[in-house]
């Protein structure tokens, strides 16, 4: 059947979410979500890398010798990640400094390799592209949720703009500095997984 298979985009957003259901890509989800802006850029970078590497690997899938397929996948992923890193360094330098090593570590992000092995190696380019976008967005939803919560309660701002008014601080309100530490991100991910499973009983292990 030709055309768009929207399930490929929709499923990773909830039922097959890479972070909350497959529990992949946790490392970067904890590290870069203290502020919304780096979380957004990271999510965008991962989405671009997953989608494009899925398309490239899918196009090459019949020519790739199985014995070196992991190496071929790594070369393609590294190529895209270095390109993304170079572009970030050239155009959003402050964000690229905040993301530091985590852009490079997209190469080892299990979501990327996981989608290449599980999907792109055996599906057509268009489907692979949609699958990549879907998984990238699934990752993005969680990162952005974490970024919003952590920046709002940890720094009182969103995207660097102050949200919580000065009058609150004068009345004794304080930013929760635990929010900007990585452990809080883990706790938040835990809460999201809990809520998600409570609402989707079929995800619970028996």
């Amino acid at each position, binding site marked *: 059947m030709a055309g768009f298979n929207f399930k490929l985009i929709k499923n990773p957003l909830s039922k097959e979410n890479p972070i909350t259901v497959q529990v992949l890509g946790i490392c970067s989800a904890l590290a870069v979500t203290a502020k919304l802006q780096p979380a957004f850029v990271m999510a965008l970078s991962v989405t671009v890398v997953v989608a494009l590497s899925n398309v490239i690997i899918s196009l090459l899938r019949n*020519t*790739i*010798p*199985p*014995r*070196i397929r992991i*190496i*071929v996948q790594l*070369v*393609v992923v*590294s*190529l895209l990640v*270095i*390109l993304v890193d*170079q*572009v970030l*360094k*050239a*155009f959003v*330098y*402050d964000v690229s400094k905040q993301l*530091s090593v985590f852009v490079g570590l997209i190469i080892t992000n299990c979501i990327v390799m996981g989608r290449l092995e599980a999907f792109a190696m055996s599906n057509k380019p268009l489907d692979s592209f949609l699958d990549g976008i879907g998984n990238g967005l699934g990752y993005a939803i969680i990162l952005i949720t974490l970024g919003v919560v952590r920046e709002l309660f940890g720094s009182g701002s969103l995207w660097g703009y102050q949200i919580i008014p000065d009058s609150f601080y004068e009345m004794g309100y304080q930013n929760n500095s635990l929010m900007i530490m990585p452990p809080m991100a883990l706790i938040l991910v835990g809460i999201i997984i809990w809520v998600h499973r409570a609402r989707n009983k079929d995800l619970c292990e028996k």
Partner: protein
Amino acid sequence: MFSNRYIFIYATVLVIVSAAILTLASVGLKPYQDKNIRVEKMQQLLSAVGIESTPKDAEELFQKYFVEQHAVNDKGEIVASIVNGKQTTGSISPFSLDTKKQLALYKANDASASLPIYICMKDGKKSYVVPVMGNGLWGPIWGNLAFSEDLNTIVGVNFDHKGETPGLGAEIALPDFQNQFKGKQIFENNNFTSVMVIKRADKANPHQVDAVSGGTITSNGVTDMLKNCLQFYIPYFNSLKK
């Protein structure tokens, strides 16, 4: 099945194509990346003299306030100068000197080592800004020190680091630590003493500032960095004082 020959050719072609794409990207984006690094350096120099800047206006503010740039050697002689945007002595640009490379030359007693010094004019007051560079616990630390006209009193500093521990060594990049340096002096009766970063520092002592608790190695790194780098400029400072 794929033959070994096919696999070798496949891998080779793949790698060559990837390398070609990366080379193109790197060459194409280099000017933008260099500009970002240059602007960041300008912002750090501006922050040492207490001028807030954004990446957009840094270049303009830098040209406006930093009226003179000199490169000096370890004998205190000026080897290159740019005054009001014009090269007056020598041919190198002091701004583009690589502090790390030049310090390595200095350590190896190479007479060609030269480091930049920037002269800032702000509200009629002259200040001298010098870059410093050293090692923290996990990697390099660096910064800029601004001196008042007496070439002794520190009017402002800024430090940055590659990857010191957040909450501990990384505190050197925060204003609380850096503000302690204001008013400190590096000479005692014309003898170079530098400024020590030590535990339980005596606030009244002009050569001591309080170390970061839990960041002893980073604090010692700052002490060494100041001593080693300022040492280089002493002959130049002395020649100006005469």
